């Protein structure tokens, strides 16, 4: 049981490049979330999903896209990278009301130059 995995761990992009941040979970959780965290700040919700085939915007969705074709995977797509997207990105799942069902991935540190 790996929990939530994210790839890559680090990435440097040039302005205008695109990339996909991968997030996979093996806990069969319905709810998945993408957050960004800027230095010294809290987490801002980018997109979330309440189940396969269902996604919705969070607080800061501009410049990002998501898809949820399976329960396990929730990739985050950056189409035209901008310096303002330099941040640490966290994927999270929410399974239920219990002490062992809330998980965050280890994060992806993205720098756009």
């Amino acid at each position: 049981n790996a929990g939530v995995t994210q790839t890559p761990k680090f990435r440097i992009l040039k302005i205008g490049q695109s990339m996909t941040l991968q997030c996979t979970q093996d806990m069969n959780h319905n709810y998945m979330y993408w957050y960004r965290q800027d230095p010294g700040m809290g987490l801002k919700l980018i997109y979330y999903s309440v189940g396969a085939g269902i996604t919705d915007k969070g607080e800061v969705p501009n410049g990002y896209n998501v898809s949820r074709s399976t329960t396990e995977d929730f990739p985050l797509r950056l189409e035209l990278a901008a310096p303002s997207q330099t941040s640490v990105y966290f994927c999270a799942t929410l399974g239920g009301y219990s002490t062992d069902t809330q998980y965050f991935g280890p994060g992806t540190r993205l720098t756009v130059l």
Partner: protein
Amino acid sequence: GENVGLHLPTLSVQEGDNSIINCAYSNSASDYFIWYKQESGKGPQFIIDIRSNMDKRQGQRVTVLLNKTVKHLSLQIAATQPGDSAVYFCAESQYGGATNKLIFGTGTLLAVQP
């Protein structure tokens, strides 16, 4: 609303003392609350959660208190240890509702002095 300020509130305590970290949540419709701990360079780690039908829940060395009247949440850590030094975030959600957004508060930096 937007975050303001570029630094987190800080709570400094002596090792062995009890710590109380506070959080004001924004949505009256929120019925599920979680506390997370984030160590430097790592992702947030679940500590404890509580639903709105309770006003107190205890874990190992931690207690969460919920006051729905004033939309206030607190995390109490007993006998604080150096390993408790981290940033603590509260999060709110409408569990099982039409939207299940998990919205985080600004965070509090807990600094434990040996």
